């Protein structure tokens, strides 16, 4: 199998694992672990899509001259998107963990079954 297919399949399997953990675990922190796994998997998928056969990094220096850049480098756009996505993933994880801490301080338990009352 080609390199991009291997990494793409790994990323998709990680996404499935993350979704499984988010659906079946009862501890809030384990649900957040599932979210982080799903995030890592989806970033793998994004970067795998940009790989070109025998490609190298899109940086014009001694290894890659300007003339041969359009034929030998990988796609720079998914890399740029993945950089943004990773930082935003960390930000969302931080907010989720802050909420988990506050929920624990409110009810002294981390099981999601304890939070069943709706707002009204």
């Amino acid at each position: 199998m080609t390199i991009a297919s291997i990494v793409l399949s790994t990323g998709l399997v990680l996404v499935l694992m993350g979704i499984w953990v988010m659906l079946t675990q009862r501890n809030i922190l384990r649900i957040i672990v599932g979210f982080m796994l799903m995030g890592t998997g989806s970033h793998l998928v994004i970067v795998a899509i940009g790989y070109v056969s025998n490609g190298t990094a899109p940086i014009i220096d001694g290894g890659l001259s300007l003339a041969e850049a359009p034929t030998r480098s990988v796609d720079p756009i998914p890399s740029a998107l993945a950089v943004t996505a990773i930082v935003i993933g960390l930000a969302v994880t931080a907010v989720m963990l802050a909420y988990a801490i506050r929920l624990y301080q409110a009810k002294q338990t981390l099981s999601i079954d304890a939070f069943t009352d709706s707002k009204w």
Partner: protein
Amino acid sequence: MLELLIYMLCGGILASGLLAVRLKSLLAAAVSTGLASLFAAVCYLLLGAPDVAMTEASIGSGLSTIIFLYAIHKTTNARE
């Protein structure tokens, strides 16, 4: 050669993801998630995306694991 490395790294990613799902201890699950991020960072380097590799290594397997450990510390009542 490159394919062999990618196979090994993807195997490592899946193994640490499986560990993060199945381990009983929450601390070990968090560290396994960081390990999966680390393998993914090396994968990005081999896929020709060094910027993404640096970002994933420092944020995914560094800061993300650390704030998770802080959150675990604050939500266990086995203190004092």
